[in-house]
C-alpha cells in the first residue's frame, strides 16, 4: 500500500527504512484534535508543533513509516519532552502518550553527546540496578562534596562548564542512607494489613528520613511493614531514557522480592516509582513467565496517599500550623490519576491551611533527569512555577516526589523565596508526633 507520499516535496520522498515495531497501536488513537497542546509545558514555552504531544506522535508515526529517519533533530524533539504526561490527563481519546514516547526513546537510546550517552548508559545499566553500588557512588560523591576538591577544580577551570552546572543541581548528600536494621516492622496496635515498602533509589540515598517517616505512619495505621531486601530501583529512569531491556530485568527482580514477601499492598512514597511500578504489567506483557505476576504486582501497588485514604486514617493527629500549597507530581496526577487523596490528607491535619496554586498540576521542570539534560528549558518552566508558588504566600510546598522536591528546593534557593519543601508523609509523621505530645506542635520548617 503506497502511503508514504504526501503532496509536499520537501521530505516527501521515503527517507529511511520503516520501523514496524514502532508502529504501535496506541498511535492510532490520536485523532489530532490538538486538545493536548496548551497543556504541554514545552509547547507552552516554545510554541512549536514538534514540541507538542500531537506533533511528537506524528513524528514517531512518520519514523515508523520510514518517511523521516531517526536523526539528531528527531532525537531532540523526543528528548525535549518532559515525559510529564499532562497530555494524557486531557486527552479525550485516552492516548497513552507515555507508552509512545518510551517506545520512541527505546529506538533512540539515551540522548546527548557520545560521552554523555556512554555515561548515562553506564549509570542506567551498571549503577541503578544495584543498591550497593549506588550507595558506594553516593558515598564517594559525599566525600567529594565535603573535600572541596570540586571548589578547587572549578576555580582552576578543570571542570567543563556543563558538568559544573550539573554539579550545582546536586543536593548535598546526607550523612545517612536508608539501611533498615531489619526487614519487618510490626504494626502499632492491632495488625490490619501486611504491606511492602518500595524504598527506591533516590529516596534511600537522599531522603532516608522520609522512608523512615513512611514506615512510622504506616505502622500507626495498623500496618506491618516489610522492606524486602531483594528489591531494587523501580527502573523509571531506565524507561524514560530508552533502556527498556534493563528496566524489564529490574522489574522482574522487584516482582520476585515483593510477591515473595506475601504482602497485601506495595506502598510507594515517590510518584515516579509508583507510576512505573503500576505499569510493570504493560512492560512485561509479552514475557510468558512474568506477565501474570507483573499484573498481580501492578495491582498491589499504591501511592502512600492513595493507600491511606483507602482505609480510614488513624488518629490522633496533632496540630501543624502552616500555610501549605500542593504541587501535583506529574507521575502522581497524570501518571496515576491521583489528585484528591493527598489534598484530603493535608486537610485532615489540624492547623494546616491548604492554598491552591495556579497550575499546580503543571510540571516543575524536574522530570527525572530532565533538569540535567535540558537545563535551559527546565529553568524556564521552573521560573513559572516559582511565580505561582510566590503568589500563594505559602510557607511550605508539599510535593510528594523526590525529583520535584529537589527541583523546587533549587528554585526556591535561586529565587530567594522564604518557602520550604516538604513531603506529604513528613507532615503526616509530624502531625502524629504532635498528636502524642499535647500542645507539642513544632515549627513546620
Amino acid at each position, binding site marked *: *500500500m503506497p*502511503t508514504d507520499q*504526501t503532496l509536499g*516535496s520537501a521530505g*516527501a520522498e521515503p*527517507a529511511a527504512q520503516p520501523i514496524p515495531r514502532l508502529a504501535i497501536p496506541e498511535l*492510532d488513537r490520536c485523532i489530532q*484534535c490538538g486538545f493536548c497542546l496548551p497543556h504541554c509545558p514545552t509547547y507552552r514555552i516554545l510554541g512549536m508543533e514538534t514540541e507538542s504531544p500531537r506533533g511528537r506522535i506524528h513524528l514517531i508515526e512518520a519514523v515508523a513509516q520510514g518517511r523521516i529517519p531517526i536523526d539528531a533533530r528527531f532525537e531532540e524533539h523526543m528528548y525535549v519532552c518532559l515525559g510529564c504526561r499532562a497530555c494524557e490527563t486531557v486527552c*479525550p481519546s485516552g492516548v497513552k502518550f507515555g507508552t509512545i514516547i518510551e517506545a520512541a526513546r527505546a529506538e533512540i537510546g539515551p540522548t546527548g553527546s557520545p560521552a554523555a550517552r556512554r555515561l548515562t548508559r553506564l549509570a542506567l545499566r551498571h549503577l541503578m540496578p544495584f543498591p550497593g553500588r549506588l550507595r558506594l557512588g553516593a558515598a564517594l560523591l559525599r566525600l567529594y562534596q565535603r573535600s572541596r576538591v570540586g571548589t578547587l577544580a572549578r576555580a582552576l577551570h578543570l571542570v567543563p562548564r556543563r558538568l559544573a552546572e550539573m554539579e550545582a543541581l546536586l543536593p548535598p548528600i546526607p550523612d545517612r542512607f536508608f539501611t533498615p536494621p531489619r526487614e519487618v516492622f510490626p504494626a502499632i496496635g492491632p495488625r490490619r494489613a501486611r504491606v511492602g515498602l518500595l524504598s527506591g533509589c533516590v529516596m534511600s540515598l537522599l531522603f532516608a528520613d522520609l522512608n523512615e517517616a513512611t514506615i512510622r505512619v504506616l505502622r500507626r495505621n495498623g500496618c506491618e511493614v516489610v522492606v524486602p531486601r531483594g528489591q531494587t530501583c523501580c527502573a523509571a529512569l531506565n524507561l524514560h531514557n530508552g533502556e527498556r531491556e534493563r528496566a524489564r530485568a529490574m522489574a522482574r527482580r522487584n516482582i520476585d522480592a515483593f510477591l515473595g514477601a506475601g504482602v497485601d499492598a506495595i506502598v510507594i512514597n515517590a510518584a515516579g516509582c509508583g507510576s512505573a511500578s503500576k505499569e510493570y504489567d504493560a512492560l512485561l506483557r509479552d514475557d510468558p513467565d512474568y506477565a501474570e505476576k507483573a499484573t498481580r504486582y501492578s495491582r498491589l501497588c499504591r501511592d502512600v496517599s492513595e493507600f491511606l485514604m483507602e482505609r480510614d486514617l488513624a488518629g490522633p493527629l496533632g496540630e501543624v500550623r502552616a500555610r501549605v500549597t500542593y504541587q501535583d507530581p506529574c507521575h502522581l496526577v497524570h501518571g496515576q490519576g491521583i489528585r484528591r487523596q493527598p489534598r484530603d490528607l493535608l486537610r485532615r491535619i489540624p492547623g494546616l491551611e491548604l492554598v491552591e496554586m495556579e497550575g499546580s498540576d503543571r510540571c516543575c521542570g524536574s522530570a527525572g533527569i530532565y533538569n540535567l539534560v535540558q537545563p535551559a528549558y527546565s529553568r524556564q518552566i521552573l521560573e513559572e512555577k516559582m511565580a505561582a508558588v510566590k503568589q500563594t504566600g505559602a510557607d511550605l510546598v508539599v510535593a510528594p516526589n523526590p525529583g520535584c522536591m529537589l527541583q523546587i528546593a533549587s528554585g526556591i534557593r535561586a529565587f530567594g523565596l522564604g518557602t520550604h519543601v516538604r513531603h506529604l508523609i513528613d507532615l503526616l509523621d509530624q502531625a502524629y508526633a504532635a498528636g502524642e505530645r499535647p500542645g507539642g506542635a513544632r515549627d513546620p520548617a
Partner: protein
Amino acid sequence: MSIVRSASKAVCYTQSAVQLADLRHRIEDRTALTRALQEVLGSDRVFTHPADLIAYEYDGAQVLNAIPDLVVLPGSTEEVVGVVNAARRHRVPLIPRGAGTGLSGGAITPIGGILVSLARMKRILHVDLDNRYAVVQPGVINLDVTKAVEGSGYFYAPDPSSQSACSIGGNVANNSGGVHTLAFGVTTNHVLGLTLVLPDGSVERLGGRGADDPGLDLTGLVVGSEGTLGIVTEVTVRLMRRREGVRTMLGIFGTIAEASQAVADIIASGIAPTALEMIDQLTVEAVEPVVHAGLPLDAGAILLIEVEGVHDAIDRSAGIVDEVCRKNRAREVRVARTEEERHLYWESRKSAFGAMGRLAPNYYLNDAVVPRSQLPAIMRQVVEIARRHGLRVVNVFHAGDGNLHPLIPYDAAAPGESGRVLKASEEMLAACVAAGGSLSGEHGIGIEKNNYMPWIFSASDLDAQRRLKAAFDPTDLMNPFKVFPSPVSCGELMTRRAPRLAASGLWI
C-alpha cells in the same frame, strides 16, 4: 509499506494526484528566502528540517496532508511584516496557522509555501472591563480570554467545543461558532476591531472598540475570510457580563427523532435557551469512560439545554423546556444540581470529537446547517444515508442552531472504507443544502468544501468574491487554493478521483 497500519489520519491523503504535484509552488532561491526570514526571526524560529516540516502537514481536519516548504514562528506584528515582505519578494505563498485545530484544512499548505504559525503570539495585550473589550494576539487560546476576566464576572462568548485549545486567530479566520451561538452569535458578533498585515506588507487597523464604526465594515469582511486576505496580528474582542443565573438540563430521550422534534418545539415555543445541544448514544459511549458525567449509556439521544437570565425568568423557561421534553416522550429531565455537575455535562459535550479515537482509528466530521424546522426530517436522512453505505454515524451537534455535525468513525486501513465515508458525507451535505441549508455552520470551507461552493453560489457571486479578495491580495499570496473552487480540493477528490484511485488499487 502495508506493515504500517495507520498510514495517515487524513481522508483525502493522496499520493497520486499528479496534477497537485504539478501545481506545487516552486521556490526559485530557497537559500536566499531562508536567509531573509532568518534575518527577521533569527535562526531558531525558521524551520526547514524535514522533522520540523512534517509536523505541520496536518491540522485538526484530517482532510488533506501537505508538507510546507518552511515554517516560521513570528512573535510580533513587526516580525509578521518582515515575513510577509520576504515572501512577497520571493513570490512564495503564506499560510497562517493558529492552534491547528481547524476542521476544514484551512491551515495546511496544499501547494507548499511558508507556514506562518502564530502560536507564539499569545499575549493578552490589554483588558478594559469598563468598556468591555480586550485586545489580544491571535495565538491566544479562546478559553484563556474568559479565564483572564471571569474573576470579575465577564466572559468571551464564542465557545467552540475546542475552546480549550483553539486560538482566537483561528476563530477569526473561520468565524467560529460554539455551543452558545444560539444566544450570543458567532465570532463576527464579538470582534470589534483587528490589526491586519496585508500582502503588500502594510499594517491596517480595522474597526475600533465600539459596537459600530463608520464606513464599510471591513472587520466583518476579514472575520471568516480564512486567512485569504492578510494575517491578523491583533484582535479587539467584546467581553460580556455573566448573567444572574444559569440552569443546565439534560433531556433524555429514546430516539434521535424524539429529541429532534423537542428541539424544533423548544425553538417554536418562543423561549430562548442559550444552548441546545444534541448528544447521541455513540457519543455517550465514547465520552462517558473519560468524563464520568453519569450520562445513561442506553439513551438514544440526550439534549443538553441551558437557560440563563434573572432567576424568575430561568424558572419559567426551565419549566417550558421540561414540559416540551416530556411531551416529546423524554424519559427523564435532569437538572445539574452543582457547578461541578454542570461542568461535567459540558465536558461530555466538548470532549466528543476528541474522544472519537475510542470508537475507531479515524473519523470524518461533517458540518452543515439546515433550517431548524427541518431538523427531524434531515436527521432521518442522515441516519438512512449512513445505513445505506454500511457506516456508523455519530450525531453530536448544535441542535438549537440547526447546525449538524454528522460524524463518521471509520478505519482508513479497511479497503474501500474511506471512499464510502466520503461518498456518504457528500450525500449528507447535499441533503442539507437541498433542505434549504448551507455548506458550513462554523468550521469554514478551507480546502475541504471549496468545490461545493457552486452548490450555493452562482458564478457571478463567486466572481464578485474573488474580485474582493484580489483587492486585498492581487497576487494571490495569501492562503491560495482555499475557499474558492480550485483544482486542489478535498471535495474534488471526493467526487471525481476517489473511484478512479480506488479502481487502480491506490488508497485515498
